[in-house]
């Protein structure tokens, strides 16, 4: 083996040692290998219900050209974006409000809403906002907010007392302490919480779009395919949702790195 080959092999072996940082090329080799292994397992799996990769990718083409996948995706993207934006504003606002003791029980109570079933709220929300888009949006916002507010309130609650005291020693009044320590000091964490909770939106989307299918959406399309046991189409739509979700993750991560460049400077795995 050539010296370069030996180095590459040694680099790959590091993947089995704890807490090692791999080079980009070694990481790419590992990812490519895992994808190939996954595709091989998928292609040669003997489960009858599992469509083959070729069938799934063909179905994506069919969904795109004949069943308006692009249109449905756009509708879901817009709904999800709207819901993420509203729930982010609500949740971050509520979490920051916990600096005022008056709001802590209220915010804690909203967070406890994550134990409740959304199905039980469908009727209530229908009566409150009517059907259609407002119903889907309100259900999605509710479902995301109860998780988002819990994570964000926890970020605020876990700020050490020493950080507050330190800001006070800089002659900051209490509202300035809130701005500097609670708001600016947690922006990077807020982005991380947003990244995690925005993913919940895609999980909830299918259910919400299933409740009111008139406006379409990728969730409605998925449920329609499932109803007729079109497994290739179901898997195709899932792959599209996964790709869109990953893109959303990457965009939020990129915005976080741009807005908070300090957040990843000392991470071992950047």
């Amino acid at each position, binding site marked *: 083996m050539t010296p370069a080959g030996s180095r590459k092999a040694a680099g790959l072996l590091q993947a089995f040692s704890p807490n090692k940082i791999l080079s980009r090329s070694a990481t790419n080799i590992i990812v490519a290998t895992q994808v190939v292994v996954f595709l091989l397992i998928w292609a040669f799996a003997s489960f009858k219900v599992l469509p083959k990769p070729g069938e799934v990718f063909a179905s994506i083409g069919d969904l795109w050209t004949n069943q308006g996948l692009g249109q449905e995706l756009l509708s879901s993207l817009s709904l999800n974006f709207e819901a993420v934006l509203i729930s982010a504003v609500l949740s971050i606002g509520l979490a920051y409000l916990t600096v005022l003791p008056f709001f802590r029980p209220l915010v804690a109570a909203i967070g406890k809403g994550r134990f409740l079933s959304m199905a039980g709220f469908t009727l209530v929300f229908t009566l409150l906002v009517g059907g259609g888009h407002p119903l889907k949006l309100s259900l999605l916002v509710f479902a995301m907010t109860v998780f988002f507010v819990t994570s964000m309130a926890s970020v605020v609650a876990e700020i050490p007392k020493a950080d507050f005291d330190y800001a*006070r020693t800089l002659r900051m009044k209490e509202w300035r302490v809130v701005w500097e320590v609670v708001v600016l000091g947690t922006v990077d964490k807020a982005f991380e919480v947003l990244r995690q909770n925005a993913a919940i939106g895609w999980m909830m989307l299918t259910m919400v779009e299933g409740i009111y299918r008139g406006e379409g959406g990728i969730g409605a399309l998925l449920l329609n395919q499932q109803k007729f046991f079109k497994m290739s189409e179901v898997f195709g739509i899932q792959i599209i949702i996964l790709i869109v979700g990953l893109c959303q993750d990457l965009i939020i991560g990129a915005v976080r790195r741009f807005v908070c460049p300090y957040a990843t400077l000392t991470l071992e795995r950047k």
Partner: protein
Amino acid sequence: MLREKIAYDVRECLLSVKGVNLNLGGRPILRDVNFEVHNLYRPGMLQGQVVGLLGPSGMGKTQLFRILAGLNPPDSGHVLIGDPPVPVAAGMVGVVAQHYPLLHHRTILGNLVVAGRQAGQPAKAAETEAQRLLEVFGLKEQGEKYPVQLSGGQRQRAAIAQQFMCSNQLMLMDEPFSGLDPLALARMCQFIKDIAQTDEHKTFVIVTHDIASAIEVCDTLMVLGRDKGPDGHFIPGAKIQQTVDLIARGLAWHTGISRTPEFHAAVNEVKDLFAHL
């Protein structure tokens, strides 16, 4: 070794701690703590004050530090600073905590500027002063970096510079010698001595349990500890047990003092005192 006697005057009181008592959870932590720090005037030169507040662990040093910083009020007694004296409040005294906190979301220059703005300086003046201090503290090249990008020593200096931006002449330091290697320790001691000589009213109060380093940089030591009752048991609550005038002993304001027998004798004396607190 015979060292020349250094002439100085004791002038106005800069820090006065009177009858400070503190109980936590019903347990006395501090009991009638009293001391004063005066402006020591040396003719022909700028000489600030460096006072060491020493004591074994668990003697309430951190609680006293918080009271001196105006972060916590004592149960009784008071802390007055300046001339004319005013009760201390958070922000009036520079506070350099043990782990050298900085605003992690701001650059070093941003950290200094925000401190200057808090002290009421206009934006332009704050930036000019921040740039000057960065140069004085050897951090000119680090201005655009974030706190996480600094070494431990740079972070220490940045934290001190930030406090200089917004506080008066009194600076409290909590365990500034903790966790430093010998070279960094020597640099830290020299740094405090140098800064103390930038202004006659510049006053450092250093809370530490590092006896040798404290004797190296301070002009006065105050040893915090508990009294013993007639039965030999400790009475809960610490107070100043002894004040060591290092100027009178010829141990302050001289160079190379740490190599002298008098220095080692003083270290051993305070160590022995610790054993009985």
